[in-house]
């Protein structure tokens, strides 16, 4: 699965990276990333996740070929 990060998340993770582990849903992916970098736990908890340009919920089932975009709280304007 390929992960894309944005904005402040890039202070904690690479802009793009792959995960080989079999992670079945968004909530588990969030936990996995928080364990990989505990300093990012709070910001990850505030993020939205998107697959195929649509926001998905915590129970969304992930597939190994998915591209997951992790969307921090917006700060446009």
């Amino acid at each position, binding site marked *: 699965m390929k992960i894309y990060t*944005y*904005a*402040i998340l890039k202070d904690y993770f690479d802009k793009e990276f792959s995960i080989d582990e079999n992670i079945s849903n968004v909530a588990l992916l969030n936990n996995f990333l928080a364990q990989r970098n505990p300093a990012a736990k709070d910001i990850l908890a505030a993020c*939205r996740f998107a697959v195929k340009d649509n926001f998905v919920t915590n129970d969304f089932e992930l597939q190994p070929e998915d591209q997951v*975009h992790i969307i921090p*709280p*917006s700060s*446009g*304007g």
Partner: protein
Amino acid sequence: MQHLSAHTINIPELLATAHHPKAGAIVLFSGETRDSSHGKTVSHLDYEAQETMADKMIADILQQATQRWQLNIAVAVHRTGKVAVSETAVVVITACAHRSEAYAANRFIIDKIKHEVPIWKCEYFTDGSKEWGGNCNCKDITGDANQHVYEFDGIK
């Protein structure tokens, strides 16, 4: 990208596209870079976006506003990249029959963009520091990252 621009936004040019024979009111909002934030002097802002999502979401917000307030024209463009002090970071133009609807729709659009659209601002200061800033923190209030508190009319 129709609603994102990596280049300076030409406000007179955009405004020229917003006149309509049935519109008695045009409201233009320009969000611009301030020279200070967090007690420090701002050098410039830098905006990043998840561009495909942001462009589609702004289009959807404009469509919602057009239907709700019967707008004749609705325009929104947000910058990406470096935006200098006093330059426009985002512009929203609404045109319709009467001013109350034009103002309300304009505020709706900018609120929705600020809270929902995946665009992020990084503030660069003259002391060499930087800070990702102004994040939507509605989750602290609503408990849901997708549930926001808007200025225009409470929780949506």
